[in-house]
Every structure is written in structure tokens, then in C-alpha cells.
């Protein structure tokens, strides 16, 4: 048995197996699940890196792994892994590792730790499954796994009614969106009789852009924009982010970006040949601009620290939609695509990984503050910098990065978006800059009210435990590397991802 051949499926099957085993681990001892789950996350991160190495050595040709048998590939479920898929998997690997270490201390005082770590593993499985699959129905199944596991985690703190409210709202939303996705899958199945994404793409490309495909595209854009938390569907996102316990909010950021992955996969891989006008690009751009603006202005008036950051997550999602949306808009125009479309897409995709890192870090610091102060209300906290020194430093790095202050990685991706979008439409670029300014303003507010000022004698705000610091330090380290060597990152992982998106997928196997 050749081990390297099976790495694609092991990335999904291993955490899945571990998730089934974790409840039994909980029977052994109370602390067994956390060490077990973290060990699994380490192994999976290692496997993802190995897989990434394999993918990047193959250029734009994706790795195809058939499940069930080797003979009739086209009728089986396949995993298709190109540079963009593995890019998303890398994000999930880093964030899930940091979150699982961070949660050691955070969930220590709650019961039900074995189930907490089970669901943590399942969220990771859902995201890996979504980004590595090459089958439309399989995408739906893993979409549901990811949403349901996240809902279970949001409802973790049983002493609060709000957590159930948030979980219910998010669940209702994501269930409806999952069903619409299934409807779109049904439309594809009825026309082409297959569920393989590459085969569907061939079918869509071979005929005219008919009514059914238009309706399916509309449904898919809606569903995946909802999963990513774009503006008209963002209502439940702040609730769920703010009620999710501790580091789960950071995982949530990474998991919702699987929705972005699916959206871009839909537009580029399935609908690539029929997108000749700018309309679809403009739909994505308008969703993005709305997300950016509404997200940041709503964040400015929040006084709950996690809710504020959740609105910023929505606002940053807008940048990615804007960047890649410009790429979609100029798909039918090769000259413009080469001139600035690719750069816009690179900026948008670079922003995905930057966002997962710094927003993850910010959510972790917010949870650290909650852990010590016991409140999320900014009005009731002050002077934390006196005692929580490391947390302050981590927060500053995250805040500078999200605001796009020059040496940080947030600046590199935003610069790429500004400069390329300017050539497409100067107004959009100006809005993006304005949003960046407002982002800085609201983080100044958080920094001022939580960390500055006289020491609050009422709360015992000492530094958080070691495991939480380690969790934050992992993400901080990634941010610093990305800040110092943006060119290296763009050349090694971003450009192959863009090339892979534009290249499309070949059809696996014969009949």
C-alpha cells in the first residue's frame, strides 16, 4: 500500500475517525479528549502540508482521488485537489490547530468537553470535505456537516438563553440554504445525469446559457454568499460569532470561508465558459461592497467586543468578494484579465488567508478578555494592558493588521486590491479605502476602552493561562511571517491558486 497515494482521503478520514473515537476517550478521563484531538490536528496539519507539496509540484493539474474503485472514475465520487483547494485546507489546518490548543484552558470549567472536541473535529472535517471534494452532492453533505457542527458549538454555553437563540437562528438560515443548494444540485442532475463537478462544467460549457443553469447559478450564489456571511444574509452571523464559546469564533471564520471557496469554484470552474458579460461579476461586487460598508458602519456602534469583531468579519469578507468579483467581471475580456483582473483575484485570495489569521487572532484575544473579565461589554472594561501584557501585544498586532497599517500583512493584500480595483472602477477602490479607515477607527476604540486607562481594581485580570497564549502565538507567528515576506507567500501559494481557478478542472477518467 502506497501511503502518499492516500493522503487526500486521510486528511478527511483521519479527523472523522478521531471524532467518532473522542466520546469514548471522554470515558477514560476528563482531559483525554483535548490531548487526543490536538494530536489529531497536528497530524492532519502535517498531512495537509505534505499534500500541498504534492499539489504544488504538479502545476495546474489537479490531484484526483477516486473513492470506491479505480475503474469507473466518472461515476464515482472523486476528490479533486488543485492549488486553490489546498490553499483553503492550509488555512483550516493552521486555525484549527491554534483553536484546539487555545481551548484547553478555556473549556476547562465547562462540562461536556468530549463533545466539544468532537464537534471541533467535525467542523474541520466539514471544511476539509467541502474544499477537497470534486462532487456536487458531496459538497452539500459536507456543507451540512460544517453548519450543524458549528450550531452545536454555538449552543455550548447552556446557562445562557442567548446562545440557543443564536444557534437556532443560524441553524434555520443554514438549513434553508442547504436545501436550496440541494435544489440546484437536482437541476444539474436532471440536465446532465451526473454529479461530478468537472462533468457538470463540461455540460454547462457545451450548451447555451439556458434558463435552468441561470436559476441554478442564482441559487448557488445565494447559498454560498450566505455561508460566507455577505451582507443581506449577515443577520445571524454576529449572533453566532458572539455567542460561540472562546476560540470557536476563530474556527467559524475559517469555516465560513469554505463558503467563499464554493462560490468561487461555482463561478470559475462550473460557469467559466458561459460568463461572458460583467453581470455576474457585478452581483458579487455589489454583495462585497454592501458587506464592506454595512459591516464596518455597524461595527462602529457596537459595544459588545465580539459582536464588533463579528461585524468586522463581515466587512472583511466584502474585500474578498470585491477582489475576486472584479476577476469574475473581466473573465470575458482576456486583456483586462491580464492587466488587472488577475492582480485583483490575487489580492482577494491573499486577503482570505490574511483575514483568517488576524481575525482568528482577534477573536482569540476577545475570548481571553472575556475569560478574565467575565464580560464582553466594552463599557465595563478598562486598563487591561496593566496586567495582560501578552494579550495586549497580540491584540495590537491583530488590530494593526486588520486596519491595513503598512508593515502588516493586511496592508499587502489591501494594496493589491486597491490598485487593481482602481483600474476597474475608481469609486470601488475609494470605498474600500474609506472602509479601511473606519476599520482603524473602530479598533482604536476597542484598544482605547479595553486596554488603556486606569487599572480596574474590581476584576482580577491577570494574564491568561499558557495554552491560550500558545494558541494566540501560533497565529501571531503566521501573521509576522506573512507581513515580512508577502512576495514569497504570493509567489508560492497565491499565484498557483489563481492559476488553478482560471484553469478549470479536467474530467477524471473515461467511461
Amino acid at each position, binding site marked *: 500500500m502506497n501511503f502518499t497515494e492516500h493522503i487526500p482521503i486521510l486528511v478527511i478520514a483521519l479527523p472523522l475517525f478521531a471524532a467518532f473515537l473522542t466520546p469514548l476517550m471522554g470515558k477514560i478521563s476528563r482531559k483525554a479528549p483535548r490531548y487526543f484531538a490536538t494530536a489529531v490536528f497536528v497530524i492532519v496539519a502535517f498531512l495537509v502540508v505534505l499534500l500541498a507539496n504534492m499539489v504544488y509540484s504538479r502545476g495546474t493539474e489537479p490531484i484526483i482521488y477516486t473513492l470506491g474503485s479505480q475503474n469507473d472514475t466518472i461515476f464515482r465520487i472523486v476528490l479533486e485537489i488543485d492549488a486553490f483547494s489546498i490553499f483553503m485546507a492550509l488555512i483550516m489546518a493552521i486555525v484549527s490547530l491554534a483553536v484546539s490548543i487555545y481551548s484547553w484552558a478555556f473549556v476547562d470549567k465547562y462540562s461536556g468537553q468530549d463533545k466539544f472536541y468532537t464537534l471541533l473535529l467535525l467542523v474541520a472535517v466539514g471544511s476539509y470535505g467541502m474544499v477537497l471534494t470534486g462532487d456536487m452532492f458531496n459538497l452539500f453533505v459536507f456543507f451540512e456537516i460544517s453548519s450543524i457542527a458549528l450550531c452545536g458549538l454555538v449552543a455550548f454555553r447552556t446557562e445562557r438563553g442567548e446562545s440557543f437563540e443564536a444557534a*437556532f437562528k443560524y441553524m434555520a438560515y443554514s438549513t434553508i440554504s442547504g436545501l436550496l443548494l*440541494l435544489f440546484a444540485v437536482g437541476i444539474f442532475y436532471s440536465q446532465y445525469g451526473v454529479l461530478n463537478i468537472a462533468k457538470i462544467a463540461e455540460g454547462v460549457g457545451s450548451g447555451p446559457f439556458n434558463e435552468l443553469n441561470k436559476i441554478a447559478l442564482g441559487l448557488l450564489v445565494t447559498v454560498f454568499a450566505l455561508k460566507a456571511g455577505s451582507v443581506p444574509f449577515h443577520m445571524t452571523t454576529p449572533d453566532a460569532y458572539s455567542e460561540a464559546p472562546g476560540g470557536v469564533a476563530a474556527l467559524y471564520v475559517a469555516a465560513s470561508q469554505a463558503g467563499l471557496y464554493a462560490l468561487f469554484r461555482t463561478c470559475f470552474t462550473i460557469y467559466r465558459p458561459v460568463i461572458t458579460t460583467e453581470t455576474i461579476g457585478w452581483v458579487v461586487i455589489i454583495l462585497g461592497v454592501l458587506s464592506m460598508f454595512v459591516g464596518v458602519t455597524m461595527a462602529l456602534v457596537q459595544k459588545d467586543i465580539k459582536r464588533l469583531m463579528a461585524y468586522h468579519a463581515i466587512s472583511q469578507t466584502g474585500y474578498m468578494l470585491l477582489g475576486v468579483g472584479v476577476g469574475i467581471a473581466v473573465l470575458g475580456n482576456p486583456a483586462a484579465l491580464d492587466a488587472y483582473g488577475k492582480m485583483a483575484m490575487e489580492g482577494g485570495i491573499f486577503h482570505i488567508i490574511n483575514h483568517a489569521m488576524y481575525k482568528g487572532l482577534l477573536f482569540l484575544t476577545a475570548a481571553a478578555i472575556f475569560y478574565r473579565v467575565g464580560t464582553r461589554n466594552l463599557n465595563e472594561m478598562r486598563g487591561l494592558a496593566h496586567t495582560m501584557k501578552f494579550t495586549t501585544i497580540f491584540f495590537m498586532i491583530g488590530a494593526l493588521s486588520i486596519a491595513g497599517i503598512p508593515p502588516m500583512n493586511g496592508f499587502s493584500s489591501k494594496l493589491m486590491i486597491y490598485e487593481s480595483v482602481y483600474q476597474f472602477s475608481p469609486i470601488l477602490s475609494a470605498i474600500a479605502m474609506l472602509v479601511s479607515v473606519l476599520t482603524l477607527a473602530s479598533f482604536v476604540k476597542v484598544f482605547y476602552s479595553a486596554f488603556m486607562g486606569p487599572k480596574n481594581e474590581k476584576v482580577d485580570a491577570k494574564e491568561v493561562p499558557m495554552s491560550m497564549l500558545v494558541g494566540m502565538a501560533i497565529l501571531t507567528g503566521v501573521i509576522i511571517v506573512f507581513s515580512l515576506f508577502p512576495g514569497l507567500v504570493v509567489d508560492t501559494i497565491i499565484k498557483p491558486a489563481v492559476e488553478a481557478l482560471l484553469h478549470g478542472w479536467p474530467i477524471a477518467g473515461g467511461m
Partner: protein
Amino acid sequence: MIGNAPYIVVGFIIFLGLYTAIFKRNLIKIVMGITLVESGVNLFLITLGYRTGGGAPIFTQATNMHMVLPTPQALTLTSIVIGVATTALMLSFIVMIYKHYKSIDAKDVRRLKG
């Protein structure tokens, strides 16, 4: 046109489900609406696979070798189980919401807003 009546029925069921989810204030009714949408989509998948005069795709003592498509049935099976799972989860949330809020009216369950 009239041959596609099953699809129109499917559309109507989905419409009814969405209507229930938007206009009914009782949380359990909202869950029922979502279940209705789910039934519509399941029915849609099943109808896609029907062949006129086809029998069940099972060879044990089969007499009719003209069979309906098996894949949509498998997909529907998956979708039903997922539906059961989501419904159970939502109902358990509603039980807990009732415990904390003493109400399952959507107008009262809105501490998180703004």
C-alpha cells in the same frame, strides 16, 4: 407542460414552506416550514429519477426490467437523514429557548439584535 405537473407541485410545496418560515411567528411552525421545504426538495429529487412504467431498481425476483433511476433515490435517502438530524437539533434548541425565555414566539425571542 401538463406532463411537468409533478415539478409544479414541488415548486408549490417549497413555496408553502418558505411562506410558513416567513409569516408564522411560532418557532415550531418555522421548523415545520423548513421541513416542508425539505420535503419539496426530496420530492423533486425523486421525481427526477422516474421513468414511465419503471419498476423499483431491485433484482430480487424482479419481473419488470425497465427500472427507474437509482441515484436520485440514494440522494433522497441521504437528504432525509440530514433533514431528521437538523430537525432534531432545531427542536432541541427550541426546548432550551422555551426554558430560558418562557416563550416560543419569534417576537419575544430577540435579545440579540442591532
